[in-house]
């Protein structure tokens, strides 16, 4: 139902997530932001079971901030990813596991850009590109075919748009809009939302 995608370039990471918050067959919200800012250069994208996503993501977010307050410096993306994975693993065999799928994207001054794929069984893999959700089945082959490690920012956005178009064409669920963000050495940048042509969105008068 939900969809996450991340593409790593030479000096940036591009991530996108859909904006639907659904409850069984009803779309309750069309502008839900599934990205959580862990620090100035780290984003956590989180999908999965209803309450678990926000609870787990906010828990990780607050703990990363606490680390910064206590130690005076921020965790690197690799450390943050491993911390997240450890928490997920600790809860996995408890009576209340978190059923969440994550992408962690960050930029480190020494290591450069990094995209980490984590799933609900707390597997962790650093990958050049990754996707979560049913949409991943349709788009991973597109990423396999067109991805190059030396993509420019514009080329990465075009590749992302290709993936979204494919979802629009073949995926039975209507995903009308996607939030897009880019992380590079300067921090997190909000890019324009991608709204595939022909996808129906709830046209509402903007609130003042």
């Amino acid at each position: 139902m939900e969809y996450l995608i991340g593409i790593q370039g030479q000096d940036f990471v591009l991530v996108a997530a859909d904006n639907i918050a659904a409850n069984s067959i009803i779309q309750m919200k069309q502008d839900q932001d599934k990205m959580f800012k862990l620090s100035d250069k780290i984003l956590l994208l989180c999908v999965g079971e209803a309450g678990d996503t926000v609870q787990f993501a906010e828990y990780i977010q607050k703990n990363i901030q606490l680390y910064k307050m206590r130690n005076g410096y921020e965790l690197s993306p690799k450390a943050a990813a491993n911390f997240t994975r450890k928490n997920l693993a600790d809860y996995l065999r408890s009576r209340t596991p978190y059923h969440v799928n994550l992408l962690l994207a960050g930029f480190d001054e020494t290591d450069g850009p990094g995209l980490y794929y984590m799933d609900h069984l707390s597997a962790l893999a650093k990958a050049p590109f990754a996707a979560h959700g049913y949409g991943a089945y349709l788009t991973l082959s597109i990423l396999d075919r067109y991805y190059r490690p030396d993509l420019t920012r514009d080329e990465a956005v075009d590749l992302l748009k290709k993936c979204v178009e494919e979802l629009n064409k073949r995926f039975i669920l209507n995903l009308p809009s996607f939030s897009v963000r880019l992380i590079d050495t300067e921090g997190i940048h909000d890019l324009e939302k991608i709204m595939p042509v022909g996808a129906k969105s709830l046209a509402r008068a903007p609130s003042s």
Partner: protein
Amino acid sequence: MALQDVSGFQDTPMSHRWNTPVSLSGPMGDTTPLLDMADERILGWGRFKSSERDGEVPLRFFIPTPQSSVPFRCDNRHTSLSSLSTSSSPPTRRPFPLCHGTTTLAFVFQGGVIAAADTRASCSGHVACPSAQKILPIHSHLLVTTSGSGADCMLWERILAREIRLYQLRHGRRLSITGSAKLLSHMLHPFKGTDVCVAATLCGWDRCGPKLFYVCSDGTRLQGELFSVGSGSPYAYGVLDGEVRWSLNEQEAISLAREAVYRATHRDAYSGNCVDLFHITAQGYCRRDREDLREEYHRERERERVLKRGKEKSEEDKK
């Protein structure tokens, strides 16, 4: 309830943490040290300090040990190893299935927030109460529309009201609607996976203007401008999605909410009887009289009859 806590009166020697002890251990984002049972007994009952600690309001639930725990151990030998990992006993059989039939809706517009709900409390196929109240005021600027299990909603609404009042007493200002939603969501989190079923929308007006939140016992917490919850919600969405706009005036908004509930009660078996309507503005909430939707149904049928007669007449005149 609030006074009891502020004065530190304790009548049960349970853990003072407001999270129930079901599955909590270690890191759930709470860095304050847990006062263990030994300390509490040493210091005696009626400790004033414990309820003063910020956010550490004791919420004592007496969880009775289920009678079926003894036979379960006997069965354990026959069942596979995997059952050993569960320390909870098998769920007690309910005498009747839990009921979730309702239609509640709320939306934000330029004149504030409208909240509407039907009044039918249904239970395993019959109407348990035709005049239940599903929209409960917490304070002058916050309403909760309740859906899911009636008992759970009633309890959690009272608990939420108590916590908000305590916050107000301690901090001298009202908790924001966003904070109230987060508080309710976090209080419900330990009960995720159990049979607690609460799907509430918090409608209110705080310093930041009109606010609407959907909070569910499965952990969902969403801010939005239009929510409808319950078995009749798809029918209500059908009416609302086409018509709700920010620029509605008060009369239009009220009649739209009424219409949405009416259509939902017509189609959904588990919604019906009357409609309650509340309107929240910066000055507080005001309540419309409860209206029986049977009248509306008869009025609509009458209107159709008149139209039909008019058409037949004009066809006759043509001939």
